[in-house]
């Protein structure tokens, strides 16, 4: 293998192999070179080292935030393999914990919606509570202030003159019970054993715990119908049930690249601009000729409209950069999206750590 420190410049791959290594080429019929070449000795014959040293990884990694608010984040992460990016995505969806209602004790439900459907709907409500403040609750454990959040819904629908009150039960009618369950004791069951009020939990926001969105309709009622219940939320992760998933979605796409293989001018240029539904191309006036240019390659959705038709696949080449990911995380609200990503990294680290310990 060539020695990089010997002063000679490093051997390079021939262009066609470099293209296969770094790009997915999207032909009109199918994409090719979709796999990433991982084996360190894959290009031994050319004297090119395909191994990965941590120093190189650290030198090449780039992260840029494109947009961010309380719920969504979009960022570019460059210099990482799909295997790692996908691990982050999978962990975000299935392994970062949140709180969600797991047990529902229904005292009264005369609405048209069945108990089990109602319970399922309650489970899916996103709860605005930092899961890092709570412990996991095992089946044998009693519900206490460190592992359970109790909510109560007590709504009666009535008629007041012409008006009907409480005709829909919304998520803001779900009241947080910081002192634990209030279920009547004549049931002879103790549902929670809180040692102290959850209000004193360090780190809890002043406004307390509630559903992330106040306007989610849980059930509809007609006059005379009522719902009285308690929902107990515990900590869990998305691989047990999707209600614990902290994200609406976490996804990435590879950076699209649109290459013009020849000068496209005049009528053809106009046709090309017309073809693209997302406005990737623009027309530039060079003297008297109109020339097509690639103005916004990031907009490309890979619909392949521009390579359809006779000879168009020879004029335009669509590729994707294999190590450039446009990552989007949409949080359901319990944690900010950038915190979710950091949590995901932590979880992957814990996995590694666990196995190292078990191997020693």
């Amino acid at each position: 293998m060539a020695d990089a420190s010997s002063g000679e410049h490093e051997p390079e791959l021939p262009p066609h192999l470099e293209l296969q290594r770094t790009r997915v080429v999207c032909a009109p019929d199918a994409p090719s070179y979709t796999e990433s070449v991982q084996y360190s000795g894959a290009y031994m014959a050319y004297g090119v080292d395909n191994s990965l040293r941590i120093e190189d990884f650290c030198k090449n990694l780039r992260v840029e935030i494109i947009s961010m608010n309380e719920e969504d984040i979009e960022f570019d992460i460059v210099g990482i393999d799909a295997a790692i990016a996908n691990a982050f995505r999978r962990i975000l969806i299935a392994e970062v914990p949140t709180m969600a209602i797991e047990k529902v004790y229904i005292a009264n439900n005369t609405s048209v919606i069945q108990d089990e459907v109602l319970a399922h709907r309650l489970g899916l409500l996103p709860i605005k509570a930092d899961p890092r403040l709570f412990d996991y609750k095992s089946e044998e454990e009693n519900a206490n202030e460190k592992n359970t959040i109790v909510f109560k819904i007590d709504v009666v629908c009535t008629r007041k003159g012409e008006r009907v009150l409480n005709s829909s039960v919304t998520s803001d009618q779900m009241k947080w019970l910081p002192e634990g369950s209030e279920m009547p004791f004549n049931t002879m069951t103790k549902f929670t054993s809180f040692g102290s009020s959850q209000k004193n939990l360090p780190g809890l926001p002043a406004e307390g715990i509630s559903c992330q969105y106040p306007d989610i309709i849980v059930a509809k009622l007609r006059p005379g119908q009522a719902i009285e219940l308690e929902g107990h939320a515990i900590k869990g992760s998305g691989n047990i049930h999707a209600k614990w998933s902290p994200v609406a979605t976490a996804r990435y796409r590879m950076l699209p690249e649109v290459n013009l293989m020849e000068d496209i001018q005049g009528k053809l240029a106009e046709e090309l601009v017309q073809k693209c539904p997302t406005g990737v191309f623009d027309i530039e006036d060079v003297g008297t000729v109109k020339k097509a240019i690639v103005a916004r390659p990031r907009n490309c959705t890979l619909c392949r409209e521009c390579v359809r038709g006779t000879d168009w696949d020879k004029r335009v080449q669509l590729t994707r950069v294999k190590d450039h990911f446009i990552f989007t995380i949409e949080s359901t609200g319990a944690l900010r999206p950038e915190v979710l990503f950091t949590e995901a990294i932590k979880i992957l680290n814990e996995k590694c750590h666990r196995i190292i310990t078990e191997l020693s």
Partner: protein
Amino acid sequence: MAATMELGSETDPRNATFSISDEDHTLGNSLRFVLNKDPRVAFCGYSVPHPSETRINVRVQTTGVPARDVLKDALNDLMAMNQHVSTTFNRAVETFKANQGVNELSMKSGVTSQHSGSVKKP
């Protein structure tokens, strides 16, 4: 059953299969990537033997060093990479927040005093 088992021969530590419980493609695929990038690895692959059992088998064959050591190095490398992704990401978030604070101030200057650094919903 142990959570992580090494299955191989007693006389030849170079080749082994590691059976890891409670893990899936998330770790399997990342681990295969890191292992394959290691020049000491001659072959590496992983499988999920049964879809309803959370267990993966990672096969490692090396050019000389014990497979167990190579696997441990790979795990350490993966952790180092994670650490670096984390710091780079946090730095990018800080930069973005700082820039946004500046933008917000310049947009709203004179109108209301904005808490710079805070991120507003669009």
